[in-house]
């Protein structure tokens, strides 16, 4: 008896290739080449994580949902967020521009997080794969968002209160950047639940 079709790396690899093509057709061709590499890397990282889950976790229910499907959508959402590393923040020069740019990137990141949170919560015994969000991941996203929001607030306050403290401002901006990246990592790594 052959292995389950959804355990096939070939199928997943081709599915990702198809989705990547769709992304291109829907406007992603406009992403700068250096960011495209990051997007591809993000997708492949999540796919590998998902495949690892599929190949190491015993299947408890014949006919159950392919576990990697929610991970796939997470990966795609994350991939769209990978580009955060270099967008508005990359071109800003003054402290005020930098914190504004950071908040603009953060707002885009929140959109991706909200899209995931808005999905119905996953249920363990779902026999049909469907888009859903894992409660634990949603909680992780919310906690990471609070950390990011507070870090941004601290950076903004540092700029207002101590405009001459360049070192302090840079440190606060770096902390905020790292907090936002932490939010992205939550979306990327807490996956692999049955949808």
């Amino acid at each position: 008896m052959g292995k389950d079709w959804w355990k096939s790396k070939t199928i997943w690899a081709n599915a990702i290739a198809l989705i990547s093509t769709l992304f291109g057709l829907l406007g992603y061709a406009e992403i700068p080449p250096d960011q495209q590499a990051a997007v591809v890397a993000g997708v492949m990282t999540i796919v590998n994580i998902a495949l690892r889950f599929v190949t190491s976790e015993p299947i408890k229910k014949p006919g159950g949902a392919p576990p990697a499907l929610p991970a796939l959508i997470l990966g795609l959402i994350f991939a769209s967020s990978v580009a955060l590393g270099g967008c508005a923040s990359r071109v800003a020069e003054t402290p005020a521009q930098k914190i504004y740019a950071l908040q603009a990137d953060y707002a885009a990141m929140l959109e991706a997080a909200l899209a995931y949170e808005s999905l119905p919560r996953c249920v363990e015994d779902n026999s049909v794969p469907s888009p859903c969000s894992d409660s634990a991941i949603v909680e992780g996203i919310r906690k990471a968002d609070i950390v990011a929001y507070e870090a941004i607030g601290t950076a903004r306050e540092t700029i207002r209160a101590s405009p001459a403290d360049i070192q302090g401002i840079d440190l606060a901006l770096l902390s905020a950047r790292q907090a936002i990246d932490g939010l992205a990592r939550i979306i990327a790594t807490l996956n692999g639940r049955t949808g």
Partner: protein
Amino acid sequence: MTAALQFAAELIKYATLAAEVGMNVHELLRQGEAAVNAMVAEGRDPTDAEWEALNIRIAQIREKLHSDDA
């Protein structure tokens, strides 16, 4: 075969949803970059109106993100 077809249908649904989200996020990133580029080109910091618009958007998203209303 039925399972494979079902999977294909679900995959297309996921791809569509993910593409929509990706496009929205990408567009927001571009808007942010364009706004900051304009500030840099004009040699100015964000205006109160720009701050207000961004803060309102963030507040609206966070309110939904931290709400359990489906």
